């Protein structure tokens, strides 16, 4: 019990020490989850290519591709069929 | 080898299999997707299984202790662990089993994380995990205790070739405490390096380096140097090779020419003689044979220079066409400082250096030699050597103009690019040609210079350019020395480029398939002096690894013949890719002389080709038997 308490105290102090980076990380999480949600929303009705998504949500194509790549790595999205020079990406499962 | 008593003891121990099965949760990694308790229940009653547990972390100390306790209590004599990939923890559990006093090969690992819980889920995952554990149980049932194969190794190495790589290897091996015999065909040490003068990029004299290394070798009581000596017979295997050597008076024209260089010297013994090498001992008067036992063999048989065909760039048809080594020798022997280079009293005002002669040859464009060989490879050293010669001429003889004809300038080495730059600063003129349009060397009719070189120069967009010159120098490439007899004798692998072929350029770069034979230097590929020494040291370290323990320990996973079943078909020996690894031997059976297959474990790689071809099922790879696989398939089919 007491050990946990110390833990909590220490954690509090650590949060204090890392204030700046924690704030930065929290902001990042917020932006990222908004961006990711926008991308995922675009894919609800089926697969889309990077330029299609980018045009719809007004985000640079390179940024869309970066998110899509990460989401594929963590199993959220999968690659779909090819449309002209681009691949479509779809929600997994 | 275990004594009979010990053997019986082990047999008794393992006669009735008592299998302990340990299934890991991996902290949820497995148990979140596989019902591990159900797997345990499914397999607990399989034949031979005496205990079956699940555990949160099998790899942890408490997990390992669980196994060790069961072993020490005499409860089990076989172990199956079902957890992550064997690459992660197979050795962990083998170690734990060994520490508990049991043979570590009475163990099988079922991979139910990477190949089950991380790729499947639910009932299917549980069913598959059950099958894989059942298969592992089936496999252990017939397992036998195994011991690594130990082959006594003689603390001795024979180095074949007394060039820079051979000297380097001999010195290193001796320093490591290994006895060395250095065998050199010619009367000289120093090989092709002795034919060089200043080395790129340090400017060191090749002779000084040879002298320094040879001194160390010749003064070393652990090294015996045999010049004028060749290997004529070979038998044995790693740790226990037997080589027959033959020494005889020198006969070759080259050797006799070099011998002639000694004539002017008073006491040439052990002193470097330029363009000959070190002459360490008198040549023998008669032929003599001797047999040496050795643990490893280092090949340092080096290279020979490409000899241009008659008429190739005018070679052998015009006395003004020479090779780069000829030029190097001339520059070394005539350190004159006249404003123009002179050769044989002839003033050389303009010289053409042509790269890639006998290197980078292309089928369909270049002509193969009499044996149909074409040197498609780059000889690696000639670009820098050519530029060095060009700079030397320009800096010593400012009135001599130098033209270089090249395809690509390959001054890749540390400090080599500087030679290229210096050549530009020295106003060496460069012409670049495509292999299909090489420079043409003809006699000139103008009377000003004897030769004329015409080239389609791609640097001036394909313009045809003519230059009259007094001398043409051909930068000849490297070819492997003629060691056909050794290759045949030792069944050495040779690449398409005719150099000796390593097992794999990155995994085992200085080894050949024949364990205990190592490659040092230019017998393997073109290299410069530094690279050849590096390679020689890499070969030496492999020999040290093999020999310094006094024995070679090899994987126990080799073929084993059941003499009861073998009927002497010999199909195994035919199929075996390794010369001598499995052979028919005559032996006594029921007072009859019969032929039976016999494996030399030190030569066997355990590939199993022999297993597949034996009509009697008399051969198996220890630790990976066919029966074990069949049992595993049965287990997979059954559950």
């Amino acid at each position, binding site marked *: 019990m007491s050990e946990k308490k110390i833990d909590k105290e220490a954690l509090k102090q650590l949060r204090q020490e890392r204030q700046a980076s924690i704030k930065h*990380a929290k902001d990042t999480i917020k932006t990222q989850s908004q961006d990711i949600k926008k991308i995922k929303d675009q894919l609800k009705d089926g697969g889309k290519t990077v330029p299609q998504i980018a045009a719809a949500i007004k985000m640079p194509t390179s940024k869309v591709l970066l998110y899509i790549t990460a989401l594929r790595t963590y199993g959220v999205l999968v690659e779909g069929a090819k449309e002209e020079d681009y691949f479509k990406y779809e929600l997994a499962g | 080898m275990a004594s009979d008593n010990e053997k019986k003891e082990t047999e008794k121990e393992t006669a009735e299999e008592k299998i302990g099965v340990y299934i890991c949760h*991996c902290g*949820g990694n497995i148990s979140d997707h596989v019902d591990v308790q159900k797997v345990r229940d499914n397999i607990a009653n399989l034949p031979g299984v005496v205990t079956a547990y699940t555990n949160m972390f099998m790899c942890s100390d408490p997990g390992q202790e669980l196994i060790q306790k069961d072993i020490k209590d005499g409860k089990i004599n076989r172990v199956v662990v079902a957890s992550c990939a064997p690459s992660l923890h197979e050795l962990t559990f083998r170690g734990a089993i060994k520490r508990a006093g049991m043979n570590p090969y009475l163990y099988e690992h079922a991979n139910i994380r990477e190949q089950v819980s991380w790729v499947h889920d639910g009932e299917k995952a549980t069913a598959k995990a059950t099958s894989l554990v059942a298969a592992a149980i089936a496999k252990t049932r017939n397992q036998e205790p195994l011991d690594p194969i130990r082959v006594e190794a003689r603390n001795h190495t024979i180095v074949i070739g007394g060039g820079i790589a051979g000297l380097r290897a001999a010195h290193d091996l001796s320093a490591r405490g290994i006895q060395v015999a250095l065998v050199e065909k010619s009367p000289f040490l120093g090989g092709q390096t002795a034919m060089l003068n200043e080395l790129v990029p340090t400017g060191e004299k090749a002779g000084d380096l040879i002298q320094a290394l040879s001194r160390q070798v010749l003064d070393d009581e652990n090294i015996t140097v045999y010049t004028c000596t060749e290997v004529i017979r070979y038998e044995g295997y790693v740790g226990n090779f037997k080589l027959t050597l033959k020494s005889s008076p020198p006969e070759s024209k080259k050797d006799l020419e070099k011998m002639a260089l000694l004539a002017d010297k008073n006491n040439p013994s052990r002193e470097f003689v330029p363009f000959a090498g070190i002459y360490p001992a008198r040549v023998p008067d008669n032929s003599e044979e001797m047999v040496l036992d050795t643990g490893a063999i280092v090949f340092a048989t080096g290279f020979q220079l490409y000899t241009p065909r008659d008429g190739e760039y005018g070679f052998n048809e015009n006395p003004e066409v020479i090779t780069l080594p000829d030029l190097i020798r001339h520059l070394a022997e005539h350190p004159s400082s006249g404003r123009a280079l002179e050769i044989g009293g002839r003033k050389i005002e303009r010289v053409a250096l042509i790269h890639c002669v006998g*290197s980078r040859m292309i089928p369909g464009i270049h002509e193969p030699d009499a044996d149909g060989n074409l040197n498609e490879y780059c000889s690696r050293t000639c670009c820098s050597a050519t530029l060095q010669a060009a700079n030397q001429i320009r800096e010593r003889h400012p009135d001599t103009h130098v033209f270089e004809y090249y395809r690509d300038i390959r001054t890749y080495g540390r400090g080599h690019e500087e030679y290229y730059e210096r050549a530009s600063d020295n106003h060496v003129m460069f012409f670049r040609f495509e292999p299909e349009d090489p420079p043409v060397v003809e006699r000139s009719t103008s009377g000003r210079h004897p030769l004329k070189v015409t080239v389609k120069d791609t640097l001036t967009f*394909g313009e045809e350019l003519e230059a009259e010159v007094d001398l043409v120098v051909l930068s000849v490439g490297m070819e492997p020395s003629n060691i056909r007899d050794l290759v045949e004798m030792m069944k050495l692998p040779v690449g398409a480029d005719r150099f000796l072929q390593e097992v794999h350029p*990155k995994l085992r770069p200085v080894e050949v398939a024949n364990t205990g034979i190592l490659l040092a230097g230019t017998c393997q590929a073109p290299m410069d002096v530094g*690279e050849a020494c590096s390679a020689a040291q*890499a070969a030496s370290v492999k020999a040290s690894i093999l020999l310094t323990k006094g024995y070679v320990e090899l994987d126990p996973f080799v073929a084993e013949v059941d003499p009861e079943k073998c009927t002497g078909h010999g199909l195994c020996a035919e199929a075996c890719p390794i010369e001598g690894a499995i052979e028919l031997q005559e032996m006594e059976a029921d007072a009859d002389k019969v032929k039976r297959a016999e494996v030399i474990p030190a030569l066997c790689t355990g590939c199993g080709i022999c297993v597949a071809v034996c009509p009697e099922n008399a051969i198996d790879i220890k630790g990976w038997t066919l029966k074990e696989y069949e049992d595993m398939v049965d287990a997979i089919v059954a559950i």
Partner: protein
Amino acid sequence: MDTDQVMKFDALIVGGGIGGLQTALDLADQNFKVAVVEKEATIGGKMILLSKVFPTLDCASCITTPKMAAAAHHDNITLFTYCDLKTLDRDTDGITAAVTQRPRYVDPVKCIGCRQCEYACPVYVSDEVQGGFSLRKAIYIPFSTAIPQLALMDVENCSLCGKCARVCPTEAIDYFQQPKDFVIQARTAILATGFKLTPLDQKKEYGQGEIENVITSLQMERLLAPNGPYQRVIRPSDGKEPDSIAYVQCAGSRDKSLGIPYCSRVCCMYAIKQAMLLSGSLPLADITIYYMDIRAFGKGYEQFFQNAKAMGIEFVKAKVAKITPGENQAVTIRYEDQEGAGGVLTREHDLVVLSSGMVPDWNPMGVCPVSIEEDAFIKSVMPKIAPTLTDLEGVFVAGVAAGPKDIVDTIAEAGAAAMEASNYLNAQKRKQAA
């Protein structure tokens, strides 16, 4: 001083890339005790990040992982990853190195490499291992074949949300971990500190790394690797499958304007290799290599080059003068043609790869009294007959630390360094006995 923090070995190897690992194995197999100090969180160096390797075209991971595993499991080898070398010096007693292990914020004994923390972590961070083309988490395992398979936390990007600690099945997360200082004593040391790519941010003519779809050769390795970011080759600006790909050779080598006059030895071959792999995966794409001299000098390399030519890869002898952004995210290359008709020409490509060269990844200054050459690589005092000797007795050098070289030459030199080190150890033993 706390004696627990002094560890003794026969040999200390600085760098756990392919060169360091080969030296370690060659020493350990002779029963010498070896410590390997690696600054990254995993061993394997640059090689483990490559796709396939020339001239055999076998998978780089398949060649590297067995050596990594062999080193990790070897009884005589101790790996110290995520460690900085503070100082390395020698006196009459041998080598003393001060090392600091950076905190992973994960207990290496408890972590089982299950990556549950990574999946749970909510922060995405640029993944350098994937050339910046993908995102990893703030707690992560560098890649699937990393050794050790241990997670590490990047506190700069951590929000301390506690999710990782909650999902960890072994309670391995330790937010309070501190750097650990320790001392390694050894009788000999081998420097195998490797390389990094030539920096291109100074090269104005090539866009200073600012032009989309102009990537480095190591980034292309990731695009070609089967476990790469996209698992296929598409261009990073928008995911288009490229129709035309160009290589700019000597981008940062043989270039006095960058202070790198030397040849980096590997770029010709890796460009040819990548071109071959590209023409396999994108059979319709045009592939162009702009070069000065093709330096295919190793065993089997020239034949490899000729095969590439025969496959239809276009080699243009030219000096690339300028790279600029083109239409539709394409890249424009202006070059001075040195063959054919000559003159200054312009061409557009979907993707441009800079064949970056090698610069040393470590400067011994202030850390270790070993000399470097003008090229900033470690000085070899006998480059011809003993290439791995430095000017500090008992300290040897292997691989790219002593100048650019390819994997084959690195591995050979690693063996050479191991030979020198074993003979040095042997001689010391004899001296002690006497």
